[in-house]
């Protein structure tokens, strides 16, 4: 009953890790709530401007639902092309 969390680019470097698995606590039902929770140990999640997220490899807003087994990624705005 875990969640896979991924970080990319500058956020990954600031946190010092690209991935972690966490137990999904009761009451955490959205990407935004997860961000607040993880932000307690990784304040960069709260300070990154225009933070973006993906759930199961699809772009997701902060109000998107998260559930057991999901892969949730946080990253700065993309700069490809």
């Amino acid at each position: 009953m875990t969640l896979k969390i991924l970080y990319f680019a500058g956020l990954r470097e600031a946190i010092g890790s690209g991935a972690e698995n966490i137990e999904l606590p009761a009451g955490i039902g959205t990407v935004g709530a997860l961000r607040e929770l993880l932000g307690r140990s990784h304040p960069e999640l709260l300070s990154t401007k225009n933070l973006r997220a993906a759930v199961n490899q699809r772009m997701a807003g902060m109000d998107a639902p998260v559930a057991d087994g999901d892969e949730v990624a946080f990253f700065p705005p993309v700069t490809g092309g």
Partner: protein
Amino acid sequence: MEVSVQPEDFDTGAEIAALSAGDDGAGAVASFVGLVRHDGHVAAMTLEHYPGMTEAALTDIVAQAGQRWMLRRVRVIHRIGRLLPGERIVFVGVSSGHRGDAFAACEFIMDYLKTRAPFWKKEETPEGTRWVDARESDDHAARRWSDGMAG
């Protein structure tokens, strides 16, 4: 409809030729090639991506283009890893019956790729490395496709 995410360079001429090879109905091929600009102090840049999501995001963007315009073939190649000034980063090629669809779809795919595909550029300069900031103008360019200003 084919997308590739790869460290290797690509042959622009061969990719353009393949878009209409053996297809009598193709009347237009439009393409875009993005390069690492010679930008004074930038010695190189490294492209990071989100394996799995990157391919899915590009495939979704191409599918959206296919719903908006009458397209015959689409090819997208995006390089990853360390690239030097002057090197090719990205190729978008589209074939269609008439030029309007090819031009528009090519620009749409690039605009959406810039704001929706999970790539990040990191520049190497004499002062150290730094992650490239997203540009607001890229968001504006992508947004106009849903604002009825184009497409």
